Protein backbone atom coordinates (compact mmCIF):
# COMPACT_ATOMS: atom_id res chain seq x y z
CA UNK A 1 0.00 0.00 0.00
CA UNK A 2 1.62 3.24 -1.10
CA UNK A 3 1.23 6.67 0.45
CA UNK A 4 -1.82 7.35 -1.67
CA UNK A 5 -3.78 4.20 -0.94
CA UNK A 6 -4.70 5.10 2.60
CA UNK A 7 -6.34 8.32 1.45
CA UNK A 8 -8.43 6.61 -1.18
CA UNK A 9 -11.95 5.73 -0.48
CA UNK A 10 -14.83 4.50 -2.53
CA UNK A 11 -17.56 7.05 -2.52
CA UNK A 12 -21.16 6.01 -2.73
CA UNK A 13 -23.73 8.66 -3.54
CA UNK A 14 -27.27 8.87 -4.80
CA UNK A 15 -27.62 9.76 -8.44
CA UNK A 16 -28.93 13.30 -8.72
CA UNK A 17 -31.02 12.37 -11.71
CA UNK A 18 -32.69 9.11 -10.73
CA UNK A 19 -31.77 8.40 -7.12
CA UNK A 20 -29.95 5.13 -7.74
CA UNK A 21 -26.65 4.41 -5.97
CA UNK A 22 -23.51 5.40 -7.89
CA UNK A 23 -20.14 4.06 -6.87
CA UNK A 24 -17.04 6.16 -7.48
CA UNK A 25 -14.05 3.79 -7.52
CA UNK A 26 -11.03 4.92 -5.46
CA UNK A 27 -8.98 6.24 -8.33
CA UNK A 28 -11.81 7.58 -10.45
CA UNK A 29 -12.95 11.13 -10.65
CA UNK A 30 -16.04 10.40 -12.72
CA UNK A 31 -18.79 7.82 -12.84
CA UNK A 32 -21.94 7.08 -14.78
CA UNK A 33 -25.11 6.03 -13.09
CA UNK A 34 -25.65 2.33 -13.87
CA UNK A 35 -29.41 2.90 -14.31
CA UNK A 36 -29.87 6.21 -16.09
CA UNK A 37 -26.32 6.71 -17.46
CA UNK A 38 -26.13 10.27 -16.14
CA UNK A 39 -22.53 11.35 -15.83
CA UNK A 40 -21.21 12.87 -12.60
CA UNK A 41 -17.91 14.25 -11.44
CA UNK A 42 -16.53 14.01 -7.93
CA UNK A 43 -14.22 16.51 -6.30
CA UNK A 44 -12.36 14.78 -3.49
CA UNK A 45 -10.57 16.95 -0.94
CA UNK A 46 -7.16 17.73 -2.39
CA UNK A 47 -4.00 16.44 -0.73
CA UNK A 48 -0.31 17.04 -1.30
CA UNK A 49 -0.01 13.94 -3.47
CA UNK A 50 -3.42 14.09 -5.03
CA UNK A 51 -3.90 17.80 -5.77
CA UNK A 52 -6.79 19.32 -7.67
CA UNK A 53 -6.15 19.25 -11.40
CA UNK A 54 -5.05 22.64 -12.64
CA UNK A 55 -5.19 22.14 -16.39
CA UNK A 56 -6.95 19.98 -18.92
CA UNK A 57 -7.08 19.29 -22.63
CA UNK A 58 -10.38 18.50 -24.28
CA UNK A 59 -11.03 15.50 -26.47
CA UNK A 60 -11.04 16.34 -30.15
CA UNK A 61 -10.74 12.92 -31.82
CA UNK A 62 -13.98 10.96 -31.78
CA UNK A 63 -14.18 7.27 -30.95
CA UNK A 64 -14.76 6.33 -34.60
CA UNK A 65 -11.85 8.42 -35.81
CA UNK A 66 -9.59 6.94 -33.15
CA UNK A 67 -10.64 3.42 -34.14
CA UNK A 68 -9.96 4.20 -37.77
CA UNK A 69 -6.49 5.52 -37.06
CA UNK A 70 -5.74 2.56 -34.84
CA UNK A 71 -6.76 0.08 -37.55
CA UNK A 72 -4.65 1.89 -40.12
CA UNK A 73 -1.67 1.83 -37.79
CA UNK A 74 -2.11 -1.91 -37.14
CA UNK A 75 -2.27 -2.64 -40.86
CA UNK A 76 1.20 -1.17 -41.23
CA UNK A 77 2.71 -3.38 -38.53
CA UNK A 78 3.72 -6.27 -40.70
CA UNK A 79 5.92 -8.13 -38.23
CA UNK A 80 3.17 -8.48 -35.67
CA UNK A 81 1.41 -11.73 -34.83
CA UNK A 82 -0.86 -13.36 -37.41
CA UNK A 83 -4.47 -12.50 -37.22
CA UNK A 84 -3.81 -9.13 -35.59
CA UNK A 85 -5.01 -7.14 -38.55
CA UNK A 86 -8.41 -8.67 -38.64
CA UNK A 87 -9.17 -8.12 -34.98
CA UNK A 88 -11.30 -5.35 -33.68
CA UNK A 89 -10.68 -3.89 -30.27
CA UNK A 90 -12.22 -5.77 -27.42
CA UNK A 91 -12.44 -2.74 -25.20
CA UNK A 92 -12.34 0.93 -26.10
CA UNK A 93 -12.19 3.54 -23.41
CA UNK A 94 -11.95 7.31 -23.57
CA UNK A 95 -9.79 8.22 -20.59
CA UNK A 96 -8.50 11.42 -19.08
CA UNK A 97 -5.05 10.48 -17.88
CA UNK A 98 -3.56 12.38 -14.94
CA UNK A 99 -0.17 13.84 -15.83
CA UNK A 100 2.06 16.48 -14.35
CA UNK A 101 3.00 19.43 -16.50
CA UNK A 102 6.48 20.58 -15.52
CA UNK A 103 8.49 23.63 -16.36
CA UNK A 104 11.64 25.14 -14.94
CA UNK A 105 14.55 27.44 -15.66
CA UNK A 106 17.62 25.41 -16.63
CA UNK A 107 21.10 26.81 -16.02
CA UNK A 108 23.82 24.74 -17.62
CA UNK A 109 27.58 25.06 -17.45
CA UNK A 110 29.33 23.21 -20.25
CA UNK A 111 32.71 22.46 -21.66
CA UNK A 112 33.38 20.81 -25.03
CA UNK A 113 35.83 20.33 -27.85
CA UNK A 114 34.41 21.90 -30.98
CA UNK A 115 35.62 20.45 -34.26
CA UNK A 116 36.10 22.81 -37.21
CA UNK A 117 36.73 21.23 -40.60
CA UNK A 118 39.32 22.52 -43.04
CA UNK A 119 41.37 21.37 -46.00
CA UNK A 120 45.11 20.90 -45.47
CA UNK A 121 47.84 21.63 -48.01
CA UNK A 122 47.23 18.31 -49.74
CA UNK A 123 43.54 19.24 -50.02
CA UNK A 124 42.55 16.51 -47.59
CA UNK A 125 39.70 17.12 -45.18
CA UNK A 126 40.84 17.51 -41.57
CA UNK A 127 39.29 18.60 -38.29
CA UNK A 128 40.79 21.08 -35.86
CA UNK A 129 39.52 20.90 -32.28
CA UNK A 130 39.11 24.05 -30.20
CA UNK A 131 38.04 24.22 -26.56
CA UNK A 132 34.87 26.05 -25.73
CA UNK A 133 33.35 26.57 -22.33
CA UNK A 134 30.39 28.63 -21.31
CA UNK A 135 27.01 28.88 -19.71
CA UNK A 136 23.61 28.26 -21.20
CA UNK A 137 20.34 29.38 -19.64
CA UNK A 138 16.93 28.58 -20.97
CA UNK A 139 13.39 27.88 -19.92
CA UNK A 140 12.22 24.30 -20.22
CA UNK A 141 8.48 24.07 -20.50
CA UNK A 142 5.77 21.60 -21.45
CA UNK A 143 7.41 18.52 -20.00
CA UNK A 144 4.59 16.05 -19.46
CA UNK A 145 5.03 12.99 -17.23
CA UNK A 146 2.43 10.41 -16.38
CA UNK A 147 1.00 10.35 -12.87
CA UNK A 148 -0.71 7.00 -13.40
CA UNK A 149 0.74 3.65 -12.47
CA UNK A 150 -1.44 2.16 -15.18
CA UNK A 151 0.22 3.86 -18.14
CA UNK A 152 4.01 4.29 -18.00
CA UNK A 153 5.92 7.26 -19.34
CA UNK A 154 7.31 5.65 -22.46
CA UNK A 155 3.80 4.95 -23.74
CA UNK A 156 2.91 8.58 -23.20
CA UNK A 157 6.04 9.66 -25.04
CA UNK A 158 4.87 7.48 -27.92
CA UNK A 159 1.70 9.52 -28.42
CA UNK A 160 3.19 12.89 -27.57
CA UNK A 161 3.23 15.74 -28.40
CA UNK A 162 0.00 17.32 -27.28
CA UNK A 163 -0.83 20.80 -28.48
CA UNK A 164 -0.57 22.62 -25.20
CA UNK A 165 -1.40 25.93 -26.84
CA UNK A 166 -5.07 25.08 -26.25
CA UNK A 167 -4.57 24.03 -22.66
CA UNK A 168 -7.51 25.12 -20.58
CA UNK A 169 -8.18 25.39 -16.86
CA UNK A 170 -9.68 22.24 -15.40
CA UNK A 171 -13.38 22.32 -14.79
CA UNK A 172 -15.67 19.36 -14.05
CA UNK A 173 -17.38 20.10 -17.37
CA UNK A 174 -14.28 18.93 -19.19
CA UNK A 175 -14.40 15.39 -17.85
CA UNK A 176 -18.12 14.86 -17.41
CA UNK A 177 -19.10 11.64 -19.18
CA UNK A 178 -15.54 10.35 -19.53
CA UNK A 179 -13.33 8.14 -17.40
CA UNK A 180 -11.03 10.43 -15.44
CA UNK A 181 -8.33 9.00 -13.23
CA UNK A 182 -6.79 10.39 -10.10
CA UNK A 183 -2.99 10.34 -9.82
CA UNK A 184 -1.51 7.13 -8.42
CA UNK A 185 2.12 8.30 -8.41
CA UNK A 186 3.22 10.82 -5.81
CA UNK A 187 4.10 14.34 -6.77
CA UNK A 188 7.74 13.76 -5.82
CA UNK A 189 7.99 10.63 -7.97
CA UNK A 190 6.66 12.62 -10.89
CA UNK A 191 8.89 15.58 -10.21
CA UNK A 192 11.86 13.23 -10.32
CA UNK A 193 10.74 11.79 -13.68
CA UNK A 194 10.14 15.28 -15.00
CA UNK A 195 13.58 16.45 -13.94
CA UNK A 196 15.16 13.53 -15.77
CA UNK A 197 13.23 14.34 -18.90
CA UNK A 198 14.07 18.04 -18.60
CA UNK A 199 17.77 17.36 -18.16
CA UNK A 200 17.82 15.03 -21.16
CA UNK A 201 16.00 17.65 -23.20
CA UNK A 202 18.52 20.34 -22.22
CA UNK A 203 21.33 17.99 -23.25
CA UNK A 204 19.75 17.70 -26.70
CA UNK A 205 19.27 21.47 -26.91
CA UNK A 206 22.90 21.98 -25.97
CA UNK A 207 24.15 19.72 -28.76
CA UNK A 208 22.19 21.70 -31.31
CA UNK A 209 23.27 24.96 -29.68
CA UNK A 210 27.01 24.38 -29.99
CA UNK A 211 28.74 25.74 -33.09
CA UNK A 212 31.32 24.07 -35.34
CA UNK A 213 31.08 21.00 -37.53
CA UNK A 214 31.31 18.43 -34.74
CA UNK A 215 31.44 18.14 -30.97
CA UNK A 216 33.38 15.77 -28.73
CA UNK A 217 33.95 15.42 -25.00
CA UNK A 218 30.85 17.40 -24.10
CA UNK A 219 30.58 17.69 -20.33
CA UNK A 220 27.69 19.60 -18.83
CA UNK A 221 25.89 20.11 -15.57
CA UNK A 222 22.24 21.24 -15.49
CA UNK A 223 20.69 23.07 -12.57
CA UNK A 224 16.89 23.33 -12.54
CA UNK A 225 15.36 26.22 -10.62
CA UNK A 226 12.00 28.02 -10.39
CA UNK A 227 10.15 24.77 -10.97
CA UNK A 228 6.42 24.58 -11.42
CA UNK A 229 4.55 21.30 -11.60
CA UNK A 230 0.80 21.20 -12.17
CA UNK A 231 -1.61 18.31 -12.39
CA UNK A 232 -3.13 18.14 -15.86
CA UNK A 233 -5.69 15.79 -17.39
CA UNK A 234 -4.86 14.69 -20.96
CA UNK A 235 -7.24 12.84 -23.28
CA UNK A 236 -6.48 9.30 -24.46
CA UNK A 237 -8.34 6.58 -26.31
CA UNK A 238 -7.26 3.21 -24.93
CA UNK A 239 -7.83 0.11 -27.07
CA UNK A 240 -7.33 -3.46 -25.89
CA UNK A 241 -6.89 -5.89 -28.79
CA UNK A 242 -7.00 -9.59 -28.25
CA UNK A 243 -5.31 -11.56 -31.06
CA UNK A 244 -4.79 -14.80 -29.17
CA UNK A 245 -6.93 -16.28 -26.41
CA UNK A 246 -3.85 -17.53 -24.58
CA UNK A 247 -2.00 -14.21 -24.60
CA UNK A 248 -2.87 -10.93 -22.89
CA UNK A 249 -4.42 -8.27 -25.13
CA UNK A 250 -2.25 -5.61 -26.72
CA UNK A 251 -2.83 -2.07 -25.53
CA UNK A 252 -2.87 0.61 -28.19
CA UNK A 253 -3.15 4.26 -27.26
CA UNK A 254 -4.50 6.99 -29.48
CA UNK A 255 -3.88 10.61 -28.55
CA UNK A 256 -7.34 12.04 -27.91
CA UNK A 257 -6.32 15.42 -29.25
CA UNK A 258 -4.03 14.71 -32.22
CA UNK A 259 -4.89 11.12 -33.15
CA UNK A 260 -1.30 9.85 -32.92
CA UNK A 261 -1.16 6.11 -32.30
CA UNK A 262 1.24 4.10 -30.17
CA UNK A 263 1.35 0.51 -29.03
CA UNK A 264 3.86 -2.21 -28.39
CA UNK A 265 3.22 -5.05 -30.81
CA UNK A 266 5.13 -8.22 -29.97
CA UNK A 267 7.36 -9.55 -32.71
CA UNK A 268 5.93 -12.64 -34.33
CA UNK A 269 8.68 -15.26 -34.19
CA UNK A 270 6.62 -17.40 -36.51
CA UNK A 271 6.91 -14.73 -39.19
CA UNK A 272 10.62 -14.30 -38.57
CA UNK A 273 11.06 -18.05 -38.91
CA UNK A 274 9.08 -18.12 -42.15
CA UNK A 275 11.11 -15.30 -43.65
CA UNK A 276 14.39 -16.98 -42.72
CA UNK A 277 13.14 -20.26 -44.17
CA UNK A 278 12.12 -18.49 -47.37
CA UNK A 279 15.55 -16.84 -47.65
CA UNK A 280 17.27 -20.16 -47.04
CA UNK A 281 15.11 -21.82 -49.68
CA UNK A 282 15.95 -19.08 -52.14
CA UNK A 283 19.67 -19.48 -51.53
CA UNK A 284 19.30 -23.23 -51.93
CA UNK A 285 17.46 -22.74 -55.21
CA UNK A 286 20.13 -20.39 -56.56
CA UNK A 287 22.88 -22.85 -55.67
CA UNK A 288 20.95 -25.64 -57.38
CA UNK A 289 20.64 -23.60 -60.54
CA UNK A 290 24.34 -22.70 -60.49
CA UNK A 291 25.24 -26.39 -60.05
CA UNK A 292 22.93 -27.44 -62.87
CA UNK A 293 24.37 -24.89 -65.23
CA UNK A 294 27.94 -25.94 -64.61
Amino acid at each position, binding site marked *: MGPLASTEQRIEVSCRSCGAQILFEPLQRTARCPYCDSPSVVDRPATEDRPDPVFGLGFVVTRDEAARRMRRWIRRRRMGPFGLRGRSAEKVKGVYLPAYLYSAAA*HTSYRASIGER*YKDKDDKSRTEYRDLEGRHSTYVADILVTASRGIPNDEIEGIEPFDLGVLTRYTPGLVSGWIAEEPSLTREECRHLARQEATAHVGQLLRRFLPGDSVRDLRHHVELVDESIDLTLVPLWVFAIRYDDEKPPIRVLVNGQTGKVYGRIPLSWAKVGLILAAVAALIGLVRLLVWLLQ
Partner: protein
Amino acid sequence: MGEYVDRPEAKVEVLRCNGCGAAVSYSETARAPKCAFCGSVTRLETPSDPMEQTRHFVPFTVSRGEATEAYRTWLSGLGFFRPSDLASSARLESLKALWWVGWVFLADALVSWAGDSDYGRRKASWAPHAGRLEMPFRDILVPATRGLSETETDHLTSSYRLDTAREQPEGAEGETIVEQFDIRRSAARQRVAEAMGQLAEHRVKDGFIPGSRFRNFSAAILLRRLVTQRYAFPAYVIAFRYRGRLFRTVISGQDSTRIVGRAPYSVWRILGAICAGLLALALLIMLLSLAG
Protein backbone atom coordinates in the same frame (compact mmCIF):
# COMPACT_ATOMS: atom_id res chain seq x y z
CA MET B 1 3.92 23.59 -4.65
CA GLY B 2 0.85 21.77 -3.35
CA GLU B 3 -2.15 23.55 -2.02
CA TYR B 4 -4.36 22.21 0.69
CA VAL B 5 -8.01 22.90 0.08
CA ASP B 6 -10.02 22.91 3.22
CA ARG B 7 -12.93 20.71 2.17
CA PRO B 8 -13.93 18.11 4.72
CA GLU B 9 -15.83 15.91 2.32
CA ALA B 10 -16.00 15.07 -1.34
CA LYS B 11 -18.33 17.05 -3.52
CA VAL B 12 -20.23 15.39 -6.32
CA GLU B 13 -21.35 17.45 -9.25
CA VAL B 14 -23.79 16.78 -11.99
CA LEU B 15 -23.60 19.25 -14.78
CA ARG B 16 -27.01 20.20 -15.98
CA CYS B 17 -28.18 21.38 -19.37
CA ASN B 18 -29.64 24.88 -19.29
CA GLY B 19 -32.16 23.90 -21.91
CA CYS B 20 -33.74 20.72 -20.59
CA GLY B 21 -32.10 19.90 -17.24
CA ALA B 22 -30.50 16.63 -18.31
CA ALA B 23 -26.94 15.80 -17.28
CA VAL B 24 -24.40 16.85 -19.90
CA SER B 25 -21.14 15.24 -20.95
CA TYR B 26 -18.15 16.76 -22.68
CA SER B 27 -18.46 16.26 -26.44
CA GLU B 28 -15.33 15.94 -28.55
CA THR B 29 -17.13 17.16 -31.64
CA ALA B 30 -18.48 20.24 -29.94
CA ARG B 31 -15.41 20.57 -27.71
CA ALA B 32 -17.66 21.62 -24.89
CA PRO B 33 -20.24 20.04 -22.60
CA LYS B 34 -23.16 19.03 -24.79
CA CYS B 35 -26.58 17.73 -23.85
CA ALA B 36 -27.33 14.35 -25.41
CA PHE B 37 -31.08 15.01 -25.27
CA CYS B 38 -31.66 18.46 -26.62
CA GLY B 39 -28.25 19.05 -28.21
CA SER B 40 -27.57 22.39 -26.59
CA VAL B 41 -23.93 23.18 -25.98
CA THR B 42 -22.58 24.97 -22.92
CA ARG B 43 -19.42 26.91 -23.46
CA LEU B 44 -16.51 25.86 -21.27
CA GLU B 45 -15.51 28.79 -19.15
CA THR B 46 -11.84 29.63 -19.36
CA PRO B 47 -11.64 32.81 -17.37
CA SER B 48 -7.94 32.35 -16.72
CA ASP B 49 -6.90 32.71 -20.31
CA PRO B 50 -8.83 35.81 -21.20
CA MET B 51 -8.53 37.16 -24.68
CA GLU B 52 -8.69 40.74 -23.49
CA GLN B 53 -9.03 43.28 -26.13
CA THR B 54 -6.83 46.22 -26.88
CA ARG B 55 -5.89 48.61 -24.13
CA HIS B 56 -3.76 51.08 -26.06
CA PHE B 57 -4.79 52.78 -29.27
CA VAL B 58 -2.21 54.70 -31.26
CA PRO B 59 -4.24 57.57 -32.76
CA PHE B 60 -4.59 58.50 -36.42
CA THR B 61 -2.67 61.66 -37.32
CA VAL B 62 -3.06 61.24 -41.05
CA SER B 63 -6.44 62.17 -42.48
CA ARG B 64 -8.23 60.27 -45.24
CA GLY B 65 -7.51 63.13 -47.62
CA GLU B 66 -3.80 63.02 -46.79
CA ALA B 67 -3.76 59.28 -47.25
CA THR B 68 -5.37 59.54 -50.67
CA GLU B 69 -2.81 62.19 -51.65
CA ALA B 70 0.02 60.02 -50.42
CA TYR B 71 -1.26 57.06 -52.43
CA ARG B 72 -1.39 59.19 -55.60
CA THR B 73 2.15 60.47 -55.05
CA TRP B 74 3.34 56.94 -54.45
CA LEU B 75 1.71 55.69 -57.62
CA SER B 76 3.36 58.31 -59.83
CA GLY B 77 6.76 57.90 -58.23
CA LEU B 78 7.14 54.15 -58.67
CA GLY B 79 9.73 54.28 -61.40
CA PHE B 80 10.41 53.30 -64.98
CA PHE B 81 9.33 49.68 -65.01
CA ARG B 82 5.68 50.50 -64.45
CA PRO B 83 3.08 51.13 -67.11
CA SER B 84 3.19 54.73 -68.34
CA ASP B 85 -0.51 55.27 -67.75
CA LEU B 86 -0.49 53.81 -64.23
CA ALA B 87 -1.17 57.05 -62.36
CA SER B 88 -3.89 58.14 -64.77
CA SER B 89 -5.69 54.86 -65.41
CA ALA B 90 -5.60 53.36 -61.92
CA ARG B 91 -8.97 53.68 -60.20
CA LEU B 92 -9.21 53.93 -56.44
CA GLU B 93 -11.78 51.32 -55.43
CA SER B 94 -11.77 51.70 -51.67
CA LEU B 95 -9.96 53.42 -48.85
CA LYS B 96 -10.52 51.73 -45.51
CA ALA B 97 -9.27 52.98 -42.17
CA LEU B 98 -8.47 50.33 -39.60
CA TRP B 99 -6.62 49.61 -36.42
CA TRP B 100 -4.51 46.47 -36.69
CA VAL B 101 -3.41 44.74 -33.53
CA GLY B 102 -0.11 43.71 -32.06
CA TRP B 103 1.84 43.47 -28.86
CA VAL B 104 4.41 45.84 -27.49
CA PHE B 105 6.66 44.14 -25.04
CA LEU B 106 9.25 45.04 -22.52
CA ALA B 107 11.61 42.37 -21.30
CA ASP B 108 14.79 41.69 -19.43
CA ALA B 109 16.42 38.53 -20.65
CA LEU B 110 19.46 36.41 -20.01
CA VAL B 111 20.78 35.61 -23.48
CA SER B 112 23.22 32.69 -23.96
CA TRP B 113 24.81 32.60 -27.38
CA ALA B 114 27.33 30.50 -29.30
CA GLY B 115 28.64 30.63 -32.83
CA ASP B 116 31.58 30.36 -35.18
CA SER B 117 33.35 33.49 -36.34
CA ASP B 118 36.48 34.28 -38.28
CA TYR B 119 38.10 35.86 -35.23
CA GLY B 120 40.76 33.75 -33.52
CA ARG B 121 40.89 31.15 -36.26
CA ARG B 122 43.96 29.06 -36.75
CA LYS B 123 44.12 26.27 -39.30
CA ALA B 124 40.41 26.21 -39.97
CA SER B 125 38.51 29.25 -41.28
CA TRP B 126 36.33 29.35 -38.17
CA ALA B 127 36.78 29.49 -34.41
CA PRO B 128 34.02 28.84 -31.84
CA HIS B 129 32.87 31.53 -29.42
CA ALA B 130 30.26 31.62 -26.68
CA GLY B 131 28.94 34.04 -24.12
CA ARG B 132 26.05 34.95 -21.90
CA LEU B 133 24.74 38.42 -21.13
CA GLU B 134 21.82 40.31 -19.70
CA MET B 135 19.87 42.00 -22.47
CA PRO B 136 17.06 44.53 -22.07
CA PHE B 137 14.25 44.86 -24.63
CA ARG B 138 12.13 47.97 -24.65
CA ASP B 139 9.14 48.89 -26.80
CA ILE B 140 9.44 45.96 -29.13
CA LEU B 141 6.44 45.65 -31.46
CA VAL B 142 5.23 42.21 -32.48
CA PRO B 143 2.32 42.09 -34.93
CA ALA B 144 -0.66 39.92 -34.09
CA THR B 145 -2.76 40.87 -37.07
CA ARG B 146 -4.51 38.48 -39.43
CA GLY B 147 -5.42 41.31 -41.78
CA LEU B 148 -2.01 42.55 -42.87
CA SER B 149 0.87 40.52 -44.22
CA GLU B 150 4.29 40.29 -42.61
CA THR B 151 5.83 42.47 -45.33
CA GLU B 152 3.21 45.11 -44.71
CA THR B 153 3.64 45.19 -40.95
CA ASP B 154 7.44 45.17 -41.31
CA HIS B 155 7.18 48.43 -43.21
CA LEU B 156 4.77 50.05 -40.82
CA THR B 157 6.03 49.23 -37.34
CA SER B 158 8.71 51.89 -37.01
CA SER B 159 6.34 54.63 -38.12
CA TYR B 160 4.33 54.63 -34.92
CA ARG B 161 4.93 56.85 -31.88
CA LEU B 162 3.92 54.63 -29.01
CA ASP B 163 3.97 57.48 -26.51
CA THR B 164 0.94 58.98 -28.27
CA ALA B 165 -1.23 55.97 -27.47
CA ARG B 166 -4.58 56.50 -25.76
CA GLU B 167 -7.05 54.24 -24.03
CA GLN B 168 -9.72 54.84 -26.65
CA PRO B 169 -9.55 54.86 -30.45
CA GLU B 170 -8.97 58.44 -31.56
CA GLY B 171 -8.37 60.40 -34.68
CA ALA B 172 -10.37 58.37 -37.13
CA GLU B 173 -12.82 59.95 -39.54
CA GLY B 174 -15.88 57.99 -40.32
CA GLU B 175 -16.21 54.25 -40.12
CA THR B 176 -13.06 52.61 -38.84
CA ILE B 177 -12.60 48.95 -38.06
CA VAL B 178 -10.84 47.86 -34.90
CA GLU B 179 -9.37 44.39 -35.35
CA GLN B 180 -9.97 42.01 -32.47
CA PHE B 181 -7.23 39.94 -30.91
CA ASP B 182 -7.97 36.29 -31.48
CA ILE B 183 -4.69 34.70 -30.58
CA ARG B 184 -4.38 32.94 -27.24
CA ARG B 185 -1.86 34.06 -24.70
CA SER B 186 0.30 30.96 -25.16
CA ALA B 187 0.54 31.51 -28.90
CA ALA B 188 1.33 35.15 -28.20
CA ARG B 189 4.23 34.15 -26.00
CA GLN B 190 5.63 32.06 -28.80
CA ARG B 191 5.57 34.93 -31.27
CA VAL B 192 7.11 37.30 -28.77
CA ALA B 193 9.82 34.71 -28.06
CA GLU B 194 10.58 34.40 -31.77
CA ALA B 195 10.84 38.14 -32.18
CA MET B 196 13.12 38.33 -29.18
CA GLY B 197 15.32 35.53 -30.53
CA GLN B 198 15.79 37.30 -33.84
CA LEU B 199 16.54 40.61 -32.17
CA ALA B 200 18.98 38.99 -29.74
CA GLU B 201 20.86 37.34 -32.61
CA HIS B 202 21.08 40.65 -34.42
CA ARG B 203 22.40 42.47 -31.35
CA VAL B 204 24.95 39.81 -30.43
CA LYS B 205 26.32 39.72 -33.97
CA ASP B 206 26.46 43.50 -33.96
CA GLY B 207 28.29 44.00 -30.69
CA PHE B 208 29.26 40.96 -28.67
CA ILE B 209 30.68 38.24 -30.85
CA PRO B 210 34.15 39.14 -32.15
CA GLY B 211 34.87 38.84 -35.84
CA SER B 212 33.16 39.92 -39.04
CA ARG B 213 31.80 36.72 -40.55
CA PHE B 214 29.61 34.30 -38.66
CA ARG B 215 28.01 30.91 -38.99
CA ASN B 216 26.23 28.32 -36.86
CA PHE B 217 24.85 31.00 -34.58
CA SER B 218 22.44 30.02 -31.78
CA ALA B 219 20.86 32.02 -28.98
CA ALA B 220 18.97 30.76 -25.94
CA ILE B 221 16.82 33.13 -23.95
CA LEU B 222 15.73 33.01 -20.34
CA LEU B 223 13.29 35.74 -19.38
CA ARG B 224 13.73 37.62 -16.15
CA ARG B 225 10.82 39.91 -16.78
CA LEU B 226 8.25 40.22 -19.51
CA VAL B 227 5.50 42.78 -19.76
CA THR B 228 3.28 42.47 -22.80
CA GLN B 229 0.71 45.03 -23.70
CA ARG B 230 -1.90 44.97 -26.39
CA TYR B 231 -1.85 47.80 -28.85
CA ALA B 232 -3.85 48.81 -31.90
CA PHE B 233 -2.06 50.63 -34.72
CA PRO B 234 -3.74 52.90 -37.28
CA ALA B 235 -3.47 52.22 -41.00
CA TYR B 236 -5.27 52.86 -44.26
CA VAL B 237 -5.82 49.99 -46.67
CA ILE B 238 -6.31 51.07 -50.26
CA ALA B 239 -7.56 48.86 -53.05
CA PHE B 240 -7.06 50.13 -56.60
CA ARG B 241 -7.84 48.64 -59.95
CA TYR B 242 -5.67 48.79 -63.07
CA ARG B 243 -6.78 47.07 -66.27
CA GLY B 244 -9.18 44.86 -64.37
CA ARG B 245 -6.65 43.65 -61.76
CA LEU B 246 -6.96 44.58 -58.11
CA PHE B 247 -3.98 45.80 -56.09
CA ARG B 248 -3.55 46.67 -52.45
CA THR B 249 -1.57 49.37 -50.69
CA VAL B 250 -1.24 50.07 -46.99
CA ILE B 251 -0.36 53.45 -45.51
CA SER B 252 0.59 54.13 -41.90
CA GLY B 253 -2.00 56.13 -40.00
CA GLN B 254 0.70 58.25 -38.39
CA ASP B 255 3.11 58.80 -41.23
CA SER B 256 1.85 59.23 -44.77
CA THR B 257 5.30 58.65 -46.23
CA ARG B 258 5.27 55.08 -44.95
CA ILE B 259 3.62 53.17 -47.77
CA VAL B 260 3.87 49.55 -48.79
CA GLY B 261 2.01 47.90 -51.61
CA ARG B 262 1.90 46.10 -54.90
CA ALA B 263 1.57 47.72 -58.28
CA PRO B 264 1.63 46.32 -61.81
CA TYR B 265 4.80 46.04 -63.83
CA SER B 266 5.07 46.87 -67.49
CA VAL B 267 6.23 43.70 -69.21
CA TRP B 268 7.15 45.58 -72.38
CA ARG B 269 9.38 48.03 -70.56
CA ILE B 270 11.15 45.23 -68.71
CA LEU B 271 11.69 43.26 -71.91
CA GLY B 272 12.81 46.40 -73.67
CA ALA B 273 15.35 47.12 -70.97
CA ILE B 274 16.69 43.55 -71.12
CA CYS B 275 17.02 43.74 -74.90
CA ALA B 276 18.71 47.12 -74.70
CA GLY B 277 21.07 45.69 -72.12
CA LEU B 278 21.90 42.67 -74.24
CA LEU B 279 22.40 44.89 -77.26
CA ALA B 280 24.76 47.14 -75.31
CA LEU B 281 26.67 44.08 -74.10
CA ALA B 282 26.94 42.76 -77.67
CA LEU B 283 28.20 46.13 -78.90
CA LEU B 284 30.76 46.27 -76.09
CA ILE B 285 32.03 42.77 -76.91
CA MET B 286 32.25 43.72 -80.58
CA LEU B 287 34.18 46.89 -79.81
CA LEU B 288 36.55 45.08 -77.47
CA SER B 289 37.21 42.32 -79.99
CA LEU B 290 37.86 44.91 -82.69
CA ALA B 291 40.22 46.80 -80.42
CA GLY B 292 41.91 43.66 -79.12
